C-alpha cells in the first residue's frame, strides 16, 4: 500500500475544508477503501478520518426517518425504528456482507462503495472506471455479474450495494454538506449511469460530505420484502436482488415500490412496473405482468444472459413474499 498521511480534523467544518483538497479521501469504516488501497486500485495522498463526527444518529424527523452517515450497517439493520417503520431497509442491510463487515461499514460508505467488477479490481486489466481510456475488460470477457440495464460501451459494471436498492425503492434523500451549504439529493439521482464517464460513480461533488439519509414515512411496513439471489446462500454479492414494497387495501395494490440490484451501474428503480401494479389485485398473474414490464429494454453480454430469466423470476418471487402470497 502506498504511504499516505492521516488526519482527524476536530470539527465537521474542518473535515469539509480538508476533503476539498486534491488527493484527500474520507475514511469511515474502511471496509471498501482499505481493500482498494491494498490492491493499488486507489492510492489517496491523505486520509481524513471522520469517525468521531456526530453523524451516527437514527431519529424521526418531520415526515420521515433520518439516519446519520456514520451509523453502522449492523446498528441500522437492528434499530427498532428502522425495523418497525422501514423493514425493507433492515432486510436489505442484513442481506449484505458479513456480520463482521456490517459492524464496520457505515451508511455513507455503503452508498459510496465501488463496483466489485473483477476487471476494476485487477490493475493488470483494462478498466475505464479505474483508468479512463484503457478499455473495458468485462465486455467480451467474464461478465456473469454484470449489468443488463443502462450500461454503455465504456462500462458494464454494477453497483454492489443491497442497502441502496432499498433506499432507492423507499424514495430516500441523501443530505450532503459542502462549503456552500447543505444540499438534498434524491436517491434516484445520486448514482450515475456509466455513459462516457464510468470513472464517476455518483453525483457527489468534490468537497461534499454525506451527512445522512432521510426516508419519508410510508405505509409499506407490513408488505415489504428483499430477495437476494447469489452464488451461495450468504456472504456474496447479488447476481440479482429485488426490493419490493406494497401498500394493500384488502386484496388490491394501492401503492407499490420496486427496485433491483446487481443489474445496473446504479440501484435500478422499476417505475413502469410499479405503475402496472397499482390498482391490480394481489395475484401471481399481476406480478408476472409487472416482472415482464420490468425486464423490457434489458441487454445482456454473454456471461449474464441468464439474468433475462432470473431477474423477472426474482421480481415475481419478491412480490409474492411481500404480498403474503407465499
Amino acid at each position, binding site marked *: 500500500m502506498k504511504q499516505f498521511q492521516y488526519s482527524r480534523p476536530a470539527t465537521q467544518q474542518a473535515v469539509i475544508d480538508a476533503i476539498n483538497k486534491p488527493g484527500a479521501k474520507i475514511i469511515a469504516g*474502511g471496509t471498501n477503501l482499505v481493500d482498494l488501497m*491494498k*490492491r*493499488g486500485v486507489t492510492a489517496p495522498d491523505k486520509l481524513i478520518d471522520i469517525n468521531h463526527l456526530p453523524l451516527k444518529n437514527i431519529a424521526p424527523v418531520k415526515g420521515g426517518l433520518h439516519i446519520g452517515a456514520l451509523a453502522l450497517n449492523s446498528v441500522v439493520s437492528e434499530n427498532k425504528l428502522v425495523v418497525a417503520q422501514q423493514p425493507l431497509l433492515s432486510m436489505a442491510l442484513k442481506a449484505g456482507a*458479513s*456480520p*463482521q463487515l456490517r*459492524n464496520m461499514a457505515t451508511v455513507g460508505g455503503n452508498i459510496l462503495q465501488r463496483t466489485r467488477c473483477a476487471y476494476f479490481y485487477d490493475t493488470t486489466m483494462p478498466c475505464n472506471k479505474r483508468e479512463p481510456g484503457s478499455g473495458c475488460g468485462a465486455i467480451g470477457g467474464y461478465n456473469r455479474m454484470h449489468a443488463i440495464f443502462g450500461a454503455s460501451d465504456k462500462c458494464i459494471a454494477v453497483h454492489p450495494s443491497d442497502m441502496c436498492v432499498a433506499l432507492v425503492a423507499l424514495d430516500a434523500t441523501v443530505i450532503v454538506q459542502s462549503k456552500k451549504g447543505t444540499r438534498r439529493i434524491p436517491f434516484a439521482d445520486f448514482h450515475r449511469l456509466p455513459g462516457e464517464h464510468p470513472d464517476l460513480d455518483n453525483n457527489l461533488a468534490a468537497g461534499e460530505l454525506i451527512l445522512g439519509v432521510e426516508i419519508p414515512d410510508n405505509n409499506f411496513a407490513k408488505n415489504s420484502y428483499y430477495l437476494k439471489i447469489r452464488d451461495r446462500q*450468504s456472504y456474496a454479492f447479488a447476481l440479482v436482488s429485488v426490493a419490493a414494497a406494497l401498500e394493500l387495501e384488502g386484496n388490491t395494490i394501492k401503492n407499490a415500490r420496486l427496485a433491483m440490484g446487481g443489474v445496473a451501474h446504479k440501484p435500478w428503480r422499476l417505475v413502469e412496473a410499479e405503475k402496472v401494479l397499482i390498482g391490480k389485485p394481489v395475484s401471481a398473474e399481476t406480478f408476472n405482468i409487472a416482472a415482464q414490464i420490468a425486464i423490457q429494454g434489458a441487454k445482456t453480454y454473454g456471461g449474464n444472459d441468464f439474468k433475462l430469466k432470473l431477474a423477472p423470476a426474482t421480481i415475481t418471487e419478491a412480490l409474492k413474499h411481500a404480498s403474503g402470497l407465499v
Partner: protein
Amino acid sequence: MKSKNPPEEPAHEDNFLESSRRDFLKHSGLLTAIAFTPSPLVKAAKSGLDEKIADLYEKVPVSLEVNGVKHQLSIEPRVTLLDLLREQLELTGTKKGCDHGQCGACTVHVDGHRVNSCLTLGVLVSGKKITTIEGLAKGDQLHPMQEAFIKHDGFQCGYCTPGQIMSAVACIREGHANSEHEIREYMSGNICRCGAYPNIVNAIQEVKEGGQPV
C-alpha cells in the same frame, strides 16, 4: 510494506500527489518541523535525511488495550490492526487468511464487536479495547467456546479456528444463535476450507444451549 511505489504496481494518476507531498514535507513542513520537534529530528534534518523525517512525521501515536493490557504505540497509518497485533505485539493467534475481508480468519472484537482486523487501520482503533483469541481463556481455563470446538472437532487444519471462535462468541452475545439456520447465516463471514461447518455449528449450539456466560 516499506517500498513507496513497488515496481509491479502500475503508475497512478495521482503519482504527482506523492511527489507534491514529499515536496511539502521537504520544504514548508521542514521549517515548522524543526521549530516544534525534539532534537533527533532536528539532527536528522541537518543531516539531510528528509525521507526519515517524512517517515517519522507520518507515524501516528496510538493507544489501545489488547486483552486487558494497555499499549502506547507509534504506527504508520497504513498498518492494519491485524499486522499491528501480529507483527508489533506478537499476538499471532489472529490469522491472516485472505487479507481482504473475505475469509474472517482475522476476526477480533473491538469494544466487544466482531470486526475484520485486516480491513481495520490501526489508527482507527486508538482508545479502543481489543480482544483476540489469546484473550478468551482465563489462565489455563479455556473459554467454553474453545472447549466446545475441541469436543465437537470444529476444525481440521485449524487455520480459520481463531476467527471462527471469535465470531462464534460474538454470534451468541449478539443473540444470533437461536437455530442452525441463524447460526449458519451469522457465521457466514468465516470461511473454513476444510469444511468443518457442521461441527462448528454443533459447538456453537452446545455453548448456546448450555447457557454459560460467554
